């Protein structure tokens, strides 16, 4: 074999060696591991919810309990003096808001007013009262709020409380009518009739 052919053979052998060696080098080393990643996604919408109220036993004064969503006062007035008798109850609502929110307490009448709209200041003497103030105290998480429904004017009154974080648990609402409360003077006799108000609690975005 000539030197030229020997060189050719060596060159070919080298070519084979190089071609064979390339894949075994760093080029392939990276392919020894194969990985795929998949995201897992979901969402949680802003939600507030409140269950029906439950009367708290042991804290009832002059109130039997809840009749559906109605709190019924047993004896609104003293039968002898016709002055308002004290009454109070605490109602709990299981509730949650999973975001910073606001609690709004709204009294439709700003007090207990005659359900018969014909009874008003113009139909009675100043000696008689024709509306009853009351207080609503609310405890929600670490927040407290109070609405004074003062019965000065028959109108919507409300209290708004900002809550800076998500809250869950029992919301406590205490309703109190004090002894002798009236919209005219303390212990004023109350005009005959049925009295009522609608109190609404809102959990809502701020």
């Amino acid at each position, binding site marked *: 074999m000539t030197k030229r052919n020997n060189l*050719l*053979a060596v060159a070919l052998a080298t070519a084979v060696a190089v071609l064979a060696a390339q894949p075994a080098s760093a080029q*392939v080393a990276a392919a*020894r*591991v194969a990985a795929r990643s*998949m995201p*897992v996604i979901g969402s*949680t919408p802003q939600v507030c919810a409140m269950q029906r109220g439950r009367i708290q036993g042991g804290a009832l004064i002059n109130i039997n309990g809840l009749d559906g969503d109605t709190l019924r006062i047993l004896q609104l007035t003293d039968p002898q003096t016709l002055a308002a008798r004290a009454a109070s109850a605490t109602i709990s609502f299981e509730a949650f808001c999973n975001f910073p929110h606001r609690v709004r307490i709204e009294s439709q009448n700003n007090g207990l007013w005659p359900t018969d709209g014909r009874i008003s200041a113009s139909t009675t003497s100043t000696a008689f009262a024709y509306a009853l103030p009351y207080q609503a105290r609310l405890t929600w998480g670490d927040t407290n709020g109070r609405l004074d429904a003062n019965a000065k004017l028959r109108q919507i009154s409300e209290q708004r409380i900002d809550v800076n974080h998500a809250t869950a*648990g029992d919301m406590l609402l205490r309703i109190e009518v004090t002894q002798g409360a009236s919209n005219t003077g303390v212990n004023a006799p109350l005009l005959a009739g049925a009295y009522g108000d609608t109190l609404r609690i809102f959990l809502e975005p701020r």
Partner: protein
Amino acid sequence: MRSSLVIAAALLAGSLPGTALAQSNTSTKNVGIVGTVPIICAGGTLTGGNTFDVGVLIDTTTGFLRSELSAPDQTLAGSYCSTRTTINVVATPMTAQNFTVTPPEGFSRQVDYTATASGWTTTPASYRTGEATNPAATQSRNSAFTGPITVGIGGFATTGGSALRLVADTTYRGTVTVTLTAVD
């Protein structure tokens, strides 16, 4: 790699006979022809959308994690390894991406789940987020293999306990990663 070997063989076939015939006396030379099949793994192509989308995480009446949460499986099609392998699956919990502080009492910002990769080994590889150890996360196969890998998630649970509700957040996100590793 295969194409390289073919080229090498063609060069030898075309050149060596010509040089040998040109000589009047017989002369023998041995030329080694070698080739290797590399150790290689390929993860294949994802089908099924590439994302596990669980949707709304909570029951909007109660605020608690929905009990029927699910997401369609993902499939890694065309995966292969040319030698024995291990398959490993790891996952991170679904975590609120915008609500990043410690949640208030009664709430959580994270959901745990189990990710499973099946089809590659007799026993699927599985990983549960939130667990201190996951011994089943890595499974071994003693032979080369090609075939689809089915990846699924399930067993969702609120981190911290089922008594906790999830804070509102537009995006809860986690990741499932499947890894094939060649073993020498």
